[in-house]
Structures are given as C-alpha cells and as structure tokens.
C-alpha cells in the first residue's frame, strides 16, 4: 500500500494545520501538492511568474517542509510557481533554500525542469512531432518562436526519475495535476487505473469531499484501487462527492488523457467505507504506444490601458450600447487621423457592465438596470501607443453626448488619472502535444544538496 498526503489543491490556498498534523501522524509515504494551473490565465506563463504572494507561499511551504521532516518522507510540488516555467521553478527553489537555512536541516533537493526552447519546438513542429488537440489554434513556426514561455507537462515517468534520486524535496516545473500523486503508487506496483483515478480525485485536495476549503486529504493506493479520506473536522467523502469530482474542470467525465495513455473510469465503483472514507475500484488505465506530452505556450498580445466610468443618468443607461459604439467609432477615427497608425495597430473596446459585459451579443436578459459601468479597454502594439490612446479615450468616456443637440453630459470617473495601464497582455498560443521517443527528452533533472 502507498499512502499519499495531499495538503490542499494548490500551494497558496492554505491548509488546515490540525488536519495536516493528523496526516503526518498517519505516516504518509509522500506529501504531494500542486503549485499551479492555467486557470488564472496566460499572463503568469507569459511572464514566467507565480500568481501567489511570495510571503504566503513561503509560510505554507515552510509548514509542509516541517511536516515532511516529521513524516520522514519526500515532499513533491508540481507546476511550481503557478506556471511551471524555469523562472518560476527558480523562484520556488530560492524560497526552499531560504526555509532550509532557517530550519537548519540538511536537504537533498531535486529540480525537474519543463521549459522548452521555442526554436526547438518550432523544429519539432516542422518535423511533424507537434500535433493539435481538439479546438487548437492555428500555429506556424513563427508563432511558436514568438512565445515568451513554452512548457511541456511532465507525467509520472519524469516524476519517477526525480523520486529515484532519493531527494527529500522535488520541485517540479509544469506537470499534469495527477502525475505528482500517481507516480509513487505506480512505482510501487499499485493498481494503475486506481493510481491515476485516485490522483485525479485527490489533485484538488478536499474539493472531492464536504467542507472543501479544509484542503487536507489522505489517499491509500493498493493492488485493486484506492481509498480517499478527508482529514479536517467535519469533512466527509461520500460516493457522490468523490464520483462527482470527475466532472470538475474536465471536458469528459469518464476519460482523462495523460502522458503515455488514458484513464477510463466508466466501470468505477464507489463504496462508502464509513461516514468519512470512500473506496474506489474498477477504474482502468489504457496504455498508448505513442508517448505524448501536452504543450502550453503564451505570447505577448499587445499592451493594455483600461478606463472606467459609471453611468447613473437613466437616459444614458438605457442607450449605453449605442453611446459606447459611437465613442469607439469616433475615437478610433481620431487615433488613425492624429497618430497616423494603421487600424490594426490597436483596438478600442467598451464593455457595458450591468448589461452585456459578461456575454456580449449572447446575452438573453435585456432588463435595464439603475446604473451601468463602462469599461474602456485599449490594446495596442506598444506601451506608449496604448497610453496615448487611453488619454484620447478619456474625454469621450467623461463627456460624450448621445446626440449633438443635447447638453454635454459628465459621467463619474472613479480615479484620477482615469487611465490604468495594465502593461503587456498575453495569450495562450498552443493546445498541442509533443511526441517523444524518450519521456525525458524534453525535461531535465538536477540535484542540489543543501548542507
């Protein structure tokens, strides 16, 4: 049997300290935690930085390093620093060394890197080794090379190599959410379908149970399946909460693709062991002959400046969309005329909060609210152009009348200046897989001894 302790769905979301102590007392074979995902958007991968505050990350990671020392088992983090790019891995390594010095314990740290050279990926693309997943964007070599960061998602093969080093702590770049949990059970010969399924159920911590914010869960893997137990007071796993977790952020609730194959839970059986633990058997792992890893890439998509005005005048609230459309047309024409730039060098968009900001033209509820917000979004090729256009948009958002006959209105600005520079914006550019002969070919492993 292999016992995996998962402190929470992500480092930075906090965990229940008492529940963690219970987990340590239960003598886990490994502590595994996820450090990121794409869910916060492309900027983190684009810049290669963490979403969470360094101070929060350090406090939570120090608690887990202490727990690891008490449990005498390895601690692994996957997708370190939100995006798992090398710069984010280095940030995490730096925090780890700082804590190690403060805690005064010798440590062996393994670092698994997932960053890819855009030029190398462009060559792999030219060689037919990069293929699209469903709803992938169109790509070419130039687009690949314009990415500021590309990462490949490591699977259990690469995590297993890191475990084989005997490291106390493994800091991994981008990995699949499940790989860090499934690796040790698979290495020790536990049921493959059970290992992957248990990892999927556990990757969000206690989200598969009641009291989902409590974080800490224990998963026991064995020859036939797995058992999941949440450790916080009052948290319960039930066959319903566990099976329903396969729905979460998954486009297919029965199939999960991973490097080297896929998990099929169509035949899984969920049984309550008591009022707290659930046992799962019958999940299947289907190995593939083609070893692929998913790629994520982000590239710059212009520089943004945003402005916001509040509109409370009923006449303007009623006609807000027409007012916004008129501003965009007039301001765009002025930008082209005064700045001499092409129309494809910038975009101006105004979204009406309170009416159609969420769904745009797909909105079905056309009720008129008492007030609306108008958010102006300027996206331009350069930072200075973006800010210049933002300043040109400012007087329109403040004073634009619906018709030339009416008195010049004044709307509410929240701030002075009204323009808020957002810096460079990024976009996800890849939804593809990389075909590999050797799973380690796109990854590297290094060891750091901390005396």
């Amino acid at each position: 049997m292999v016992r995996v302790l998962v402190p929470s769905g992500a480092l930075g979301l906090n965990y229940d300290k008492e529940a963690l102590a219970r987990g340590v007392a239960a003598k886990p074979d490994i502590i595994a935690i996820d450090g990121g995902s794409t869910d916060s958007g492309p900027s983190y991968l684009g810049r290669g930085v963490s979403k969470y505050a360094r101070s929060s990350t350090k406090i939570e990671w120090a608690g887990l390093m202490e727990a690891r020392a008490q449990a005498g088992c390895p601690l692994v983090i996957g997708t370190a620093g939100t995006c798992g790019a090398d710069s984010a891995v280095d940030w995490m390594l730096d925090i780890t060394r700082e804590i190690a010095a403060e805690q005064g314990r010798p440590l062996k740290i393994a670092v698994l890197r997932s960053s890819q050279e855009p030029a190398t990926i462009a060559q792999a693309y030219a060689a037919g080794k990069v293929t699209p997943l469903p709803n992938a964007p169109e790509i070419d070599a130039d687009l690949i090379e314009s990415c500021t960061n590309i990462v490949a998602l490591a699977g259990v093969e690469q995590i297993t190599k890191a475990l084989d080093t005997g490291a106390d702590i493994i800091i991994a770049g981008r990995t699949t959410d499940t790989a860090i949990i499934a690796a040790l059970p698979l290495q020790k010969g536990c049921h493959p379908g059970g290992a992957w399924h248990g990892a999927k159920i556990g990757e969000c911590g206690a989200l598969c149970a009641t009291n989902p914010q409590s974080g800490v869960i224990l998963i026991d893997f064995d020859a036939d399946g797995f058992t999941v137990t949440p450790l916080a007071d009052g948290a319960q796993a039930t066959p319903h909460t566990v099976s329903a977790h396969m729905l979460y952020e998954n486009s297919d609730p029965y199939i999960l693709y991973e490097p080297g194959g896929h998990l099929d839970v169509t035949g899984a059986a969920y049984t309550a062991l008591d009022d707290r633990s659930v046992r799962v058997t019958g999940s299947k792992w289907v190995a593939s002959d083609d070893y692929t890893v998913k790629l994520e890439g982000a590239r710059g998509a212009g520089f943004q400046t945003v402005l916001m005005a509040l509109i409370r005048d009923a006449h303007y609230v009623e006609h807000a969309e027409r007012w916004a459309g008129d501003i965009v047309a007039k301001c765009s024409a002025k930008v082209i005329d005064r700045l001499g730039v092409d129309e494809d060098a910038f975009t101006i968009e105004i979204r009406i909060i309170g009416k159609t900001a969420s769904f745009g033209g797909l909105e079905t509820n056309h009720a008129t609210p008492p007030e609306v917000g108008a958010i102006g979004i300027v996206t331009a090729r350069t930072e200075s152009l973006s800010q210049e256009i933002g300043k040109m948009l400012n007087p329109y958002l403040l004073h634009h009348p619906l018709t030339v006959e009416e008195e010049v209105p004044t709307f509410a600005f929240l701030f002075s200046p009204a323009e808020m520079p957002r810096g460079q914006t990024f976009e996800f550019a890849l939804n593809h897989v990389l075909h590999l002969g050797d799973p380690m070919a796109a990854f590297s492993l290094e060891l750091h001894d901390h005396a």
Partner: protein
Amino acid sequence: MPKIRDIVQKVRSKNAGPFWLTIDIFCGSEAAFQQLQTKLKTDAVARLYGADSQLLKRFDMADLNVVKISLPRPATQGAVDDRDMHGASWAALLAEMEL
C-alpha cells in the same frame, strides 16, 4: 415556460483548460434529471453559446443526476476578446435558458 434554474439544483461552469468550457447541470433528483434529459436540446445549447454543435459534447449521467456539456470556449481564456478568465459566469446563460 420554466427556465433551467427553476427545475435544477445548480448549474456550474468552469474552464476545462484554456480552450474548452464545461458546464455541469446538477439536477438534484431523478425526476428533474429526466425532465431535463428529455427537454434540453443540444442544438439549442450550441446556439446559446454561439458554438458549433458538432464540437459540443454532452453526457447524460443518470447515476449522478447530472447533465454535463463541454464546448469550445466562446473566446480562448485570457485572449483580448475573452470576458471571463475562469469561465464561471457562463453558467448563468444556460441557467436562464427556457426549456
């Protein structure tokens, strides 16, 4: 005509990666599940989100009383034309759809 939210317990939407949106309709009872299963037209859901119905995936899960629908995101997550980074607001559009 009743809206979906009038007969079910909860409608949730989330990103399934940056390029897909997945919507889970928790019916809360077998009766509500059967009503939804019969009345919810997949083509109408595709039209509601401006999606190609050929790419939409639907799972009617009787054991959970859940209807799950996955579709290409209305805009790629975080792109300049995206309106909802985490994809959670899109559920309201379906919750308010008349059956």
